[in-house]
């Protein structure tokens, strides 16, 4: 079954101006059927304006065992956050 209908990851963009967000996965025979299944499964309540489907096997994920070495070194580098500036009022909303 999973040979004929491999797994796909579904990304939905809820509105113009926002980016596609991962919302789940599904089984389908090919990309056309995957898009239709995504439409019927994940946009039933007006959730989206655009859908991407990606073969799950094309996604390479970071190793959970490497979480510490990947992400801990950034925790103490507060100077990377742009919080040391006074934003002039004229700039308005950023």
């Amino acid at each position: 079954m999973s040979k004929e209908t491999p797994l796909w990851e579904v990304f939905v963009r809820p509105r113009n101006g926002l980016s596609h967000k991962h919302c789940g996965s599904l089984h389908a025979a090919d990309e056309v059927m995957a898009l239709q299944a995504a439409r019927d499964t994940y946009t039933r309540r007006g959730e989206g304006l655009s859908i991407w489907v990606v073969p799950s096997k094309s996604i390479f994920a970071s190793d959970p065992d490497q979480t510490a070495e990947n992400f801990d070194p950034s925790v103490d580098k507060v100077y990377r956050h742009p919080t040391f500036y006074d934003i002039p009022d004229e700039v308005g909303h950023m």
Partner: protein
Amino acid sequence: MSQALFNALLELGDDHLILGHRVSEWCGHAPLLEEDLAMPNMALDNIGASRNIYTYAGEVEGKGRDEDQLAYLRLDREYKNCLLVERPNEDFAHTMLKQLYFAAFMEPYWQAALSSTDETIRGIAGKAVKEMAYHIRHAGEWVIRLGDGTDESAKRMQAAVEEMTPYVEELFTMSADAKACAEKGILPDREALRAQWSQTISNIFDQALLDLPEVKFPQLGGRTGHHGEEMGFLLAQLQYVQRAYPGMSW
């Protein structure tokens, strides 16, 4: 005129209700979870259209009947749906082909109805035309994959084509009521949609490697209430709740 429009609306409403009910029979039985969501989606599109059509038919009739009374409280001979939509689901090939045949007719029908002289019809058409375009795509992709699939799927798909195609003619057939409405510009001329239907189907059949048979003896009768045996069983299930608990709502 209002009697003709009422009857023509029943033809239209019954087509959508009965097909919607047939598709809904797949709920919980589809071969994939994803398809188990897609089938009721399509069923609800059809049933939703029938609700709008029945509500308007009730207004046109002016006897105080609402959508529920028209949908659930008539006898089998009073239903005017074409025979195509009441055919049993059989396998996935039959089901998807039936859906495709119907949507390939209704999409240009609602397109034409967008310029109806009747405002309510234009409103119903505006919503339905998008739904039918999707049904063509969804059912069409399945027909292509089953037709150009394995030996077994190709055999079943062609068998479905042989069995269902004689029922297509009734979609184009004009009753006296439909003619009266078409002459007033209220509802589209069904006869005029043949070319568009054939174009949609031949595009899909070319990819599906299917042959459309020539039909010598079309199956007609639904519009005049002459339904197949299966219709009685369908109505028994469809009408059960309203018959057992008259006037019930939730």
